[in-house]
């Protein structure tokens, strides 16, 4: 089965690596990259398999007191999470080639590949037990990568906050899942209409807490700054670019469809937290001197926007949230990898010590500029499309929170320009320690290029993504809003109308954005 091949190819590659001698660096690199790229290439095949359900495989697994199945699926939502994972993973593994402890390269690559498999497992699992297993297994490679392979004491300490926070979140999720299964006797996310409203309210709370820690959502982000700051760049690219989306995926795939009423009941709280996070993340980023921490806080802000989009329950904002998820994944991965290259060259992350790098490394400067502009929402790049559609959509239902979020969008340009100017412009402050900073090597150019291409592609053609977003997602939003039944014709009708409207808007946006880019260029 194609789907199993995609999930387990990275793990199989990792096992093959174990058979290669530790010192055969070129063979290790070649096999690891080949495996990751092959995974990405295979996952591209899902695009053409159809939009509603591209692949589905359901094998009975445990049938005792309850039933669980090895049920994996690729549909219109999962497709984008999978593509994001395989692309960012391949790029990160390529980026890991310059790892500074060559004698430990094999373990490093193995863990990155194993991490990719757990991520793909999370994004394909259609059975709650399977989902949870992959969810918790994600902890192990990241924990080991932080402790054993980052080489600094700070990263080892960061591993602790990562493990304890996410482990606690995972156990709360487990409690929620068990409480649900105690009622339904199956791990298949089945119809939960018979569930007492009070129970559903509690179970949704457990799910939401776990997802909020993983994303992270303010104020559950305490593990995030140290992890993003001290982990090696390829690891952060995967954690921030892909793993943080697991929480949002959990909301879209499980929590929202299973407990629409409870989601509605919890929405005010989550909207407040999301908006607080959007503002707090932006302000913290402005005040930050460490470039990786800065981007970390900007992630907090941007992903808060996605929570706002999902819990605005608007037919435009929910699909736009998915666009934003993919967009942020690409932008965060590109930013962290580029900052990793800078750190490799200069040995520092402190904004006060940088300056004037653009003169020595013009290509690096251009790439960082594109990524930073995407992050601050320059029209024509994917960040703008996502943010704009989310704001349009959530304005309809949550004008107050949307207005507050708008403030943060303005602030985004402050901290992103601060990041870019601080590193690339101004006088050179590095002094004698690093007399000349080398520009991007061909490998580095080639590995960041696909991410930037994705950013530009989604910026000019966001409808490509949202045309493939299934009606279920928009239906879920609509249903939650009207409080109806998912399969009623009314909901389906509303949903399809909403989808058309959304697609139309995107086309307009895209055209307008093109115009603005052209104007800016002239």
């Amino acid at each position, binding site marked *: 089965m194609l789907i199993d091949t995609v999930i387990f190819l990275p793990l199989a590659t990792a096992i093959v690596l174990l058979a290669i001698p530790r010192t055969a660096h070129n063979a290790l690199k070649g096999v690891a990259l080949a495996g990751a790229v092959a995974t990405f290439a295979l996952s591209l095949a899902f695009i053409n398999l159809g939009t509603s359900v591209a692949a589905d495989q359901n094998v009975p*697994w445990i049938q*005792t007191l309850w039933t669980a199945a090895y049920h994996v699926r690729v549909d219109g939502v999962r497709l984008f999470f999978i593509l994001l994972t395989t692309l960012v993973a391949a790029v990160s593994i390529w980026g890991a080639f310059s790892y500074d402890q060559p004698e430990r390269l094999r373990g490093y690559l193995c863990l990155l590949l194993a991490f990719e498999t757990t991520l793909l497992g999370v994004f394909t699992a259609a059975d709650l037990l399977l989902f949870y297993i*992959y969810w918790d297994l994600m902890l192990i490679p990241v*924990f080991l990568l932080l402790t054993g392979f980052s080489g600094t004491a700070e990263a080892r300490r960061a591993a602790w906050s990562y493990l*304890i926070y996410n482990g606690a979140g995972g*156990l709360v999720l*487990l*409690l929620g899942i068990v409480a649900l*299964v105690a009622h339904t006797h199956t791990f298949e996310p089945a119809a939960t209409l018979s569930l007492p409203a009070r129970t559903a309210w509690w179970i949704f709370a457990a799910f939401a807490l776990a997802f909020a820690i993983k994303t992270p959502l303010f104020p559950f982000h305490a593990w995030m700054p140290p992890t993003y700051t001290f982990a090696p760049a390829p690891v952060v690219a995967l954690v921030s670019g892909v793993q943080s989306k697991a929480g949002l995926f959990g909301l879209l795939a499980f929590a929202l469809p299973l407990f629409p009423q409870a989601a509605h009941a919890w929405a005010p709280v989550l909207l407040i937290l999301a908006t607080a996070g959007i503002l707090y993340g932006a302000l913290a980023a402005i005040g930050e001197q460490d470039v990786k921490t800065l981007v970390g806080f900007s992630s907090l802000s941007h992903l808060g926007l996605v929570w706002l989009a999902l819990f605005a329950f608007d037919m435009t904002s929910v699909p736009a949230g998915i666009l934003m998820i993919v967009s942020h994944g690409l932008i965060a991965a590109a930013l962290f990898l580029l900052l990793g290259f800078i750190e490799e060259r200069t040995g520092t992350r402190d904004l006060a010590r940088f300056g004037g790098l653009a003169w020595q490394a013009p290509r690096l400067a251009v790439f960082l500029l594109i990524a930073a502009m995407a992050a601050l929402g320059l029209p024509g790049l994917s960040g703008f499309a996502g943010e704009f559609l989310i704001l349009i959509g959530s304005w309809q239902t949550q004008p107050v929170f949307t207005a507050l979020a708008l403030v943060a969008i303005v602030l985004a340009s402050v901290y992103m320009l601060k990041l870019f100017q601080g590193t690339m412009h101004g006088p050179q402050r590095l002094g004698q320690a690093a007399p000349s900073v080398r520009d991007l090597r061909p490998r580095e150019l080639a590995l960041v290029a696909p991410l930037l291409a994705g950013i530009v592609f989604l910026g000019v053609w966001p409808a490509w993504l949202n045309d493939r977003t299934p009606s279920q997602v928009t239906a879920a939003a609509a249903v939650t809003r009207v409080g109806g039944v998912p399969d009623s014709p009314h909901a389906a009708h509303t949903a399809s109308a909403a989808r058309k409207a959304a697609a139309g808007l995107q086309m307009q946006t895209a055209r307008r954005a093109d115009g603005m880019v052209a104007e800016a260029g002239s």
Partner: protein
Amino acid sequence: MTAFAGVTISWPALAPILVLTGAGLLIMLVDLVSRATLRGLLYGIGILGAVGAGLTMLPLYGHSVTTLAGAFASDRFSWLFDLVLLGSLAVTLLLSSLRRAEDGGSPGAYAALLVFAAIGGMVMAGAANLMIIFLGLEQLSLALYVLAGMGYPRAASQEAALKYVLLGSLASAFLIFGSALLYGSSGGLSLDAVHAAASVPSGLFVTGLALFVVGIGFKLALAPFHSWVPDVYEGSPLAVTAFMAVAVKAASLAVLARVTYVVFGHDTSALAPLWLLAIISMLVGNVGAIRQRNLKRLLGYSSIAQVGYMVVGLAGVGPQGLSALAFYLVAYALTTLGAFAVMALLADGGEEYADLGAYPGLAARRPWPAAAMALFFFSLAGIPATAGFYGKLLLLAEGLAAGPWGLALDVTLVVGTVVSLYVYGKIVWDMYSFTEPEAVVPTGNALPSWVAVAAGALGTLVLGLAPQLFAMSQPFLSVGPR
């Protein structure tokens, strides 16, 4: 089936115990005639005895027989506990075979006592009579008091033996006094008689039950009756500690489960104090483990918490609850024995790797033992794809089905597990964080401990990935006919 003075004796039900007794006696006789160089033979006889007893158990699977005038039951419940006891006996003997002459104690006495201790545990697992429970418990305990001191060249081992015998006899006194009061209030020694008295509990009955639970609590090391655990676990010889951590817990849990199941049936409302003990144990065990610098002590604290988890399975007394408890016990046995086996493997049966200071950088020096150790710790912490995870899942489900107390137990289980993530993660962190060893320590590679490590790791993974192999499609654990 023999009848004697109106008492029927089912020989097949007693066969495992008889085979093992024969093996124990044989060890003693061979020890008298063999030379010191043939130490391996003594352990070999013990292992063969365990395997032979296991073979005689095969035809018993799925049958329920009560024998010796209802005093001893052989049912699916005792079957599984016997299996755990025999497995831990075999693994302990494997690890013991690495003992050196300077470790102290006669190998013959050592091996024979281990076998007799396992017999005591098997008697407890099937006991359906207060007197038989006490008999089995004493046989298990007396043998272990001696074994705890078998590392006597180390002063810690002598200390362990003394502490164990003092607190252990205190526990036995509680247990026997409780049994006497239960007998006084119910007029019978069999659990059925006690069950009959439970419907209209008198003050005498409640006092007796409380004392009985305190006695078993001491043996199980439920907090606050756990104070002996760290010192005894630290001081006893490595393999003996492994046996204590698994076999004593298994046998005592079997007694506790059978007593609660037979005496109270499905009405567990009277057992609130027990749930409180479990909650305290989960917290004390996990928090106490945080600051330990000795892995044996740490695993001692961890075992306190793990027993607390397993008591959750009793909260919804019934086949499902017992099944959850039993699954977790098997998972716990596999991982704990595995962890001790790794310790023995690394130090060739010595105590050097009980010190947590030996672990930093282990992954770089000994990648496979380190990976196995990490797997066992992940299983103890309940990370998915290991046996410990599915065990926790079953226990959580039992707790949720058991009302407010069950919910409290569940929440404590989750909190305790988060704390334990730190405890176990810390060691993994140490093993993988450093590239250079901080202390130069010997490293062993003996085959018997490799066998034990591999068995534990394989079992942990297989039960984690395919838990249905545990045959839970039917009401799996039935406590024999009332």
